[in-house]
C-alpha cells in the first residue's frame, strides 16, 4: 500500500516539534519520525537523576540502543593535556567539541536550561564585522517570529530592560507573555558591587560599563498584561505572518527547584512535550524510528520521502515535503548519508558552539547558591561594539548553581574535604561555609563560522544500525582565544570588585577542553549550542539552505534548527531557532498550498482549516 503524507518531519526535538505543530494546525497531515524513545515526565527524570546520585544531562532519559547520544562524560582530559573521546561522536580534535545532545522524544529540548534571549541586530552581520558569516535576513525579518516563538515557549522577560540594557529593538507596545524571572540573591550582590562601575577589556580602548541585567527565560514567571488581555486567543493567522494561536502561559510558576538541567520537576520550564500535547490529530508521531536517508529524484532534485529503520526493518515513507529536524550534527549526518544538498560543499562545515569559559570562587559572605534557575542575570557589556573586530564577543552568565558546572558540586566538595581528613563539627562548618559562598561566572563566547570545523561521516566507525557515525573536527580560532583572554582579564577585575576569592584552575585531567594562549591556560565547557552545519545564505554556491531553511538543491527539502544559523552571536540560540522554525513553517504551508493548488478551491489566506484527506498509510 502506498500513500503520501503532506510532510514528514525527521526528529521530534525542539525544532521538529514546532514545525509539526504549525503544519498540523493548518490541517496538513504530518508524520514525525523520532529516533529515540518516549520521554518520562520532568518529575520522573529528576527523580531518576537524583536516585543515581547525579550524572551528565542525558543520563536520566531513556537511551535507545539504535540511536545513541553523545554526552560530556564521553570526553576525558589527559594528565599532560589533550583528551580522549568515546561514544557516538568521533572526535578528531585538535580540541574537543565539548557538548552533548539527546536523542529521545523531545530531543535536547528536554534537558536544556531554558534561557531564551533574542539575538541582537548586530549578530546577524558578523561577516561585516570581519569574522564569520552574515545572515541573508536580519533581525527585523525575524522580529514578528521572535514574538510568536516567545508566545509558544512562554518567555518571561522585561521588554523595557531588554530594550535599554541589551539594545534590542522591541516594538513599544510589546509585552513578553510573562514578567522577568526574579533576580537571585547572588545577582543582587553582584549588582551592588558592579552596577555603574567600569572594567577594562584589554582588547578595547574604552572602559566597559557594568549593569547586571535579567535574562529572558522560557520558564514560567508571573503573567503580564499581554497574557491577561489576550487570554488564549483562538488563532488569528495569515499566510505571511506567523501563527499567533497557542498559549501565552501554560504550566505552573517556576518554584525554584534549581534542577532545570537535566529536568524541571514541576513542569515550569518549556519543553517540546508541551507543544506536542497540543498537536492536531493530523500529526502522527513514531518513536524509535531512525531515519537513515532522504530519498530524492536524481533528475529534479525533489525529495520524495525518507527511509527509516525500525523494528529491525527498513521502511519508506513518501511525502510532499521532507523536513530534517534531527539536531545540527544529525541533520548534517543525514544529508551526508543521503548525498544531498551539498553543491556548496558546506554540509557539515562551520560547526559552532558557545565555548564557555568558566571562572569560580567564593564570595566574602553567604549567597545561597543552588537556588532558583541556573542563571537569572548576566552582564551584556562585552557582546557588542568595536571590540568585536579584535576578539570574540561574550555574554557573562552569573551562575546560581555554585561550582557545579566547573566540577565542584557539593558532593565533590564533601568528598574532597573528607579525603583531607576533616570530620565532625569541623567538617560540617567548613563545608557549610565554603558551599554557602560558592559562585561562578560563565563567559559564553561567540565562535564564528569556520569551514574547517566540521562534521563528517566517520570512515572507521558505525553506529549499532550500521550507519556511519558522525565525526567531528573542531578547533577554536585565535579570535575566540583572544575572547578568552579578554574574558579572563574581565573576570579578574570582577572578582576584585566583589572581594571574592578566585578558585579558578584548569587541571588538564579535569578539563578536556583546555588550551594555552599567549602563555595563559584557559579551560572551556561546551554550552550545547551546536549550529552552522547546514548554514543559510544568499547563494547556492556558498550555503546549504536559503533563508527559509530550504535546501538550495532540493526545493521541497528543509533542514531546520541551529544548523541553519550562519552565526550564533552571544545568545543562547534556541529562541532564534524557534523563531526561524515558525517562519519556515509559514513558508512550508504556502509550499503545500501551491502543490495542492489544483485541488484547492479557496485562496490561500482564507484556507484556515483545510480538511484533511483520508488518513494515509505508507508502504513499508
Amino acid at each position, binding site marked *: 500500500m502506498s500513500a503520501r503524507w503532506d510532510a514528514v518531519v525527521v526528529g521530534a526535538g525542539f525544532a521538529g516539534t514546532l514545525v509539526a505543530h504549525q503544519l498540523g494546525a493548518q490541517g496538513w497531515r504530518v508524520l514525525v519520525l523520532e529516533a529515540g524513545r518516549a520521554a*518520562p*515526565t520532568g*518529575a*520522573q527524570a*529528576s*527523580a531518576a537523576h*537524583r*536516585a543515581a*546520585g547525579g*550524572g*551528565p544531562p542525558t543520563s536520566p532519559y531513556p537511551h535507545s540502543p539504535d540511536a545513541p547520544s553523545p554526552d*560530556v562524560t564521553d570526553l576525558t582530559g589527559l594528565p599532560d593535556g589533550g583528551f580522549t573521546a568515546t561514544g557516538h561522536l568521533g572526535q578528531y580534535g585538535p580540541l574537543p567539541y565539548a557538548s552533548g545532545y539527546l536523542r529521545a522524544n523531545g530531543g535536547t529540548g528536554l534537558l536544556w536550561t531554558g534561557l531564551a534571549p533574542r539575538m541582537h541586530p548586530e549578530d546577524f552581520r558578523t561577516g561585516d564585522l570581519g569574522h564569520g558569516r552574515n545572515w541573508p535576513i536580519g533581525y527585523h525579518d525575524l522580529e514578528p517570529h521572535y514574538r510568536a516563538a516567545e508566545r509558544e515557549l512562554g518567555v518571561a522577560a522585561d521588554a523595557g530592560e531588554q530594550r535599554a540594557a541589551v539594545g534590542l529593538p522591541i516594538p513599544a507596545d510589546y509585552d513578553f507573555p510573562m514578567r522577568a524571572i*526574579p*533576580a537571585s*540573591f547572588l545577582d*543582587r550582590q553582584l549588582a551592588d558591587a558592579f552596577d555603574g562601575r567600569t572594567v577594562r577589556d584589554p582588547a578595547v580602548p574604552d572602559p566597559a560599563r557594568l549593569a547586571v541585567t535579567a535574562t529572558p527565560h522560557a520558564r514560567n*514567571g508571573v503573567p503580564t498584561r499581554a497574557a491577561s488581555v489576550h487570554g488564549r486567543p483562538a488563532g488569528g493567522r495569515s499566510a505571511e505572518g506567523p501563527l499567533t494561536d497557542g498559549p501565552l502561559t501554560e504550566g505552573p510558576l*517556576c*518554584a*525554584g*527547584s*534549581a*534542577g532545570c538541567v537535566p529536568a524541571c*520537576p514541576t513542569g515550569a520550564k518549556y519543553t517540546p512535550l508541551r507543544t506536542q500535547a497540543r498537536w492536531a490529530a493530523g500529526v502522527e508521531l513514531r518513536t524509535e524510528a531512525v531515519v537513515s536517508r532522504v530519498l530524492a529524484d536524481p533528475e529534479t532534485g525533489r525529495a520524495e520521502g525518507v527511509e527509516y529503520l525500525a523494528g529491525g526493518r527498513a521502511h519508506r515513507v513518501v511525502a510532499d515535503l521532507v523536513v530534517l529536524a534531527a539536531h545540527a550534527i544529525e541533520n548534517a549526518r543525514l544529508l551526508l548519508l543521503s548525498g544531498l544538498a551539498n553543491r556548496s560543499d558546506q554540509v557539515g562545515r562551520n560547526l559552532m558552539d558557545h565555548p564557555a569559559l568558566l571562572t569560580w570562587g567564593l564570595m566574602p559572605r553567604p549567597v*545561597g547558591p*543552588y*537556588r*532558583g*534557575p541556573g542563571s537569572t542575570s548576566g552582564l551584556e557589556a562585552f557582546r557588542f561594539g568595536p571590540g568585536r573586530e579584535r576578539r570574540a564577543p561574550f555574554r557573562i552568565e552569573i551562575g546560581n548553581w555554585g561550582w557545579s558546572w566547573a*566540577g*565542584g*558540586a*557539593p*558532593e*565533590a*566538595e*564533601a*568528598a*574532597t574535604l*573528607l*579525603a583531607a581528613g576533616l*570530620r*565532625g563539627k569541623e*567538617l*560540617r*562548618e567548613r563545608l*557549610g561555609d565554603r558551599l*554557602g559562598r560558592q559562585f561562578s561566572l560563565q563567559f559564553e563566547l561567540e565562535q564564528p563560522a569556520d569551514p574547517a570545523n566540521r562534521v563528517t561521516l566517520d570512515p572507521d566507525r558505525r553506529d549499532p544500525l550500521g550507519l556511519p557515525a558522525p565525526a567531528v573536527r573542531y578547533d577554536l580560532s585565535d579570535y575566540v582565544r583572544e575572547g578568552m583572554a579578554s574574558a*579572563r*582579564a574581565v573576570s579578574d577585575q570582577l572578582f576584585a570588585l566583589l572581594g571574592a576569592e*578566585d*578558585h*579558578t*584552575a584548569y587541571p588538564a*585531567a*579535569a*578539563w578536556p577542553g583546555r588550551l594555552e594562549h*599567549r*602563555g*595563559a591556560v584557559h579551560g572551556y565547557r561546551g554550552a550545547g549550542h551546536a549550529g552552522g552545519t547546514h548554514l543559510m545564505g544568499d547563494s547556492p554556491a556558498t550555503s546549504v539552505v536559503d533563508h527559509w531553511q530550504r535546501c538550495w538543491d532540493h526545493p521541497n527539502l528543509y533542514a531546520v534548527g541551529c544548523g541553519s544559523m550562519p552565526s550564533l552571536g552571544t545568545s543562547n540560540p534556541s529562541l532564534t531557532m524557534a523563531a526561524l522554525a515558525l517562519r519556515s513553517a509559514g513558508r512550508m504551508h504556502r509550499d503545500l498550498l501551491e502543490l495542492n493548488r489544483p485541488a484547492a478551491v479557496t485562496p490561500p489566506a482564507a484556507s484556515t482549516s483545510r480538511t484533511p484527506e483520508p488518513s494515509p498509510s505508507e508502504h513499508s
Partner: protein
Amino acid sequence: MSVSDERPADYDLAESWDPVAAAEADALADELPDEVADELADLDEFLRVSAELTGFDVPELRATGMADEHHRTALAHRVRDEHALVHLWYVGAWPGEAPSSARAHDQGLVWRTFRATPPGAAAPGHGSWAEAPRDGATRSGAALGGAPLGGAALGGEAR
C-alpha cells in the same frame, strides 16, 4: 590581566561527575577499630558514632529520616571506616556506589551544611531565590525549606 600560569588546584576537579571516586581511593585509610565496627550493629551506637563523625547530633540525624536506611547500608558492607560512614551521611551513598535511594540522595547532609536542598528535590516557591540565605547551619530537621514536592521529589516513587 590574564593569569600566566595554572594556579594549583586546591581541589581535584576530575571528579566532576563522579564525586565518590575520589573518596573511594583512600577509603581504606581510616578503618574503624574492630570493637567500634562491631558495636555499629546497634542502631543507637551507630547513630552515636555517626553524630561524632558527621558533626550533626543524633536528633538531627534522626530528623533526616535516614537512620534505618543508612544503618542497613553500613551493615551491608564488610569493611566499614570513618570515611565511608561520613560519606554515606553526607552524600547519601556508600563510596563508589549510587545512593541507596533518591531519598538518601536528597537527605544528604552536605546540603544541610548550608541550609540548601539538592537540585530538583524541593519547590521552595517563585522568587524564593531572591531572598537572603538563612544563615548558620540548621539545627532542626527543617532544612528542606519551603513546600517540598510530592512523593517524587522527596525520593518516593516517580509519578
